[in-house]
């Protein structure tokens, strides 16, 4: 199968959906013909679809999302880009109070088919305002779906599903994933929400991980194999809806689980997943649930400091060995 990057996979999804459906359009800062997106995801799309459908906006995050909401409830399918995930804080009212609640508080009269794409994640030394992982904020708000693709294949299939759906989708990308290559079919496909993917089968310990942490978990698993520890890596692919069954199925087999997430440990993605396993699958566990996550600090700038707080293979291996 052909290989393309995560960035190209996202661009293909946008291009295909824009060709398929004239109501799909893009808006965001520097996404148009002059820059092509800060991470070049939308590069070339303005040339194909024109400036009306690939709209450069002022630096007004609240208006970007609010405009997308207004367009979505009146028949369009906007895909808004927020340049860095950290900046979603500026648009939080429009995301959490408006987009997420419009269907519910108006008694199901309105649909808000809006996609918000944004990159999270540390690893490129751009410090506290451009490096966070805030997926959990959006998991906490009913009414939004949250996608967390870790591979080019998942990125394309999930983005197409997000654009075609009837609900707001918060689509998390990761800066370090954009250049990663992976197999992506040339033919048309979509990936449903709420269906996890077992990225590696194993028998002894389950690792649940998302986004860039999936790759670190796979590296850790390859290393542990040499020490005769067989690790299964489960990637939920969407946090809302969350495929509990897939995690449960894996835990039933292994009896051990490590949850790996790049966001802060307290009230984070790993906390929610660990709580679900504790609540619903404790009878299958042979060891305590382990979590590997960011230690509740802002993301520091200096490379050794940043490396210290972001979960790595060593931390994952250590956690696995503690319960294996």
């Amino acid at each position, binding site marked *: 199968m052909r290989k393309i990057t995560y960035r190209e996979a996202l661009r293909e999804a946008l291009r295909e959906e824009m060709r398929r459906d004239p*109501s799909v*359009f893009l808006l965001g800062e520097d996404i148009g013909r002059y820059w092509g997106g800060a991470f070049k995801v939308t590069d070339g799309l303005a040339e194909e679809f024109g400036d*009306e*459908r690939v*709209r450069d*906006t*002022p630096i*007004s995050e*609240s*208006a970007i*999302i*609010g*405009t*997308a*909401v*207004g*367009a*979505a*409830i*009146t*028949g*369009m399918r*906007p895909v808004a880009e927020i340049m860095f995930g950290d900046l979603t804080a500026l648009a939080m*009212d*429009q995301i959490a*109070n*408006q987009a997420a609640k*419009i*269907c*519910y*508080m*108006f*008694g*199901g*009269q*309105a*649909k*808000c*088919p809006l996609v918000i794409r944004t990159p999270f994640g540390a690893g490129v030394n751009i410090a506290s305002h451009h490096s966070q992982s805030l997926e959990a904020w959006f998991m906490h708000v*009913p*009414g939004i*779906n949250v996608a967390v693709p870790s591979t080019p294949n998942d990125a394309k299939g999930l983005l197409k599903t997000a654009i075609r759906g*009837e*609900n707001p989708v918060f689509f998390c990308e990761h800066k370090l994933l954009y250049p990663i290559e992976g197999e992506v079919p040339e033919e048309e496909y979509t990936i449903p929400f709420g269906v996890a993917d077992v990225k590696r089968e194993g028998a002894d310990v389950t690792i649940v991980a998302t986004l860039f942490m999936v790759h670190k978990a796979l590296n850790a698993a390859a290393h542990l194999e040499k020490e005769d520890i067989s690790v299964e890596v489960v990637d939920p692919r969407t946090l809302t809806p969350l495929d509990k069954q897939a995690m449960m199925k894996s835990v039933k087999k292994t009896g051990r689980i490590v949850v790996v997430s790049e966001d802060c440990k307290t009230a984070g993605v790993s906390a929610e997943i660990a709580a679900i396993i504790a609540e619903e699958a404790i009878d299958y566990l042979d060891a305590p649930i382990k979590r590997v996550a960011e230690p509740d600090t802002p993301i520091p700038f200096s490379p050794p400091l940043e490396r210290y707080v972001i979960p790595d293979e060593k931390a994952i291996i250590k956690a696995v060995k503690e319960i294996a």
Partner: protein
Amino acid sequence: MAQNLEREKLIGMYRKMLEIRLFEEKVFELYGQNLVPGTIHLYAGQEAIAVGVCSNLGKDDYITSTHRGHGHCIAKGADLKRTMAEILGKETGYCKGKGGSMHIADFNIGMLGATAVVGAGLPIAVGAGLSIKLRKTDQIVACFFGEGASNQGTFHESINLASTWKLPVIFVCENNLYAMGTRQSIAMNVENIADRAVAYGIPGVVVDGNDVLAVYEAVQKGVERAKKGEGPTLIECKTYRQKGHSRVDPAKYRPKGEVEEWLARDPIKRLKEKLLQTNTLTKTEIQRIEKEVVTKIEEAVKFAIESPYPSSEEALEDVYA
């Protein structure tokens, strides 16, 4: 010209304004009987704005509304029964009882909903305007908000964007002098919100918000401009909130005599006098209209009171489409 407005249109305006006023008086009364859960934000005194604006709009045009939104809904053509039922939290309400007084919507008539976050409706109106432009229809969006909202970032972000993209949006600022209990002069160093339009390169117009014909004419010009593709207009309607901010507010922060001064400029009273003076309507005809409106509201109240509350399980529906 408004003076030449056809008789039916003028009578229609009077009827709508009266409907809003008497409807809300009823809501106030029902609140006192513990039939209205939560709180209410009454529109009394501002009826000329909703009606003056919506008289320029067709069914397909859009409005966005606020926590003080009953008047906007009724002016846009919402059904009184379903509006009252929603305010009472009943299953037959517009939002099945999930929205209440502060979140009424009727998407079938382009009423895109009331948001209770001050200033949050502006970017949504811009989005509806963008949608119109992209779909190439000749609809219009009217966006209602108060002078308090003009201090939110969304006001500035939204008008800048709508102006830059030349979107068909009428920004209607209802300046009723008070943002909850904060008088305008405490919160900003400009007298006219409309002056802020200069910063975004669009016309800013000040009108007497208690004169329905003045509002109607200003909006008409804004609509013409928008339909020519020239972009949005900011219309500031100077008005007064005759009641307190919400049901629990006795509004003691208002200087002596201010209420009386504004009551003398009551928009409904003024239109009524004009209709009589110009022989558009006789006293008997006015009484007949009043009677009809009262009957219609009584029917709405009966419908709302007799409607059942939603079943508990309804709370779990509609989280996702």
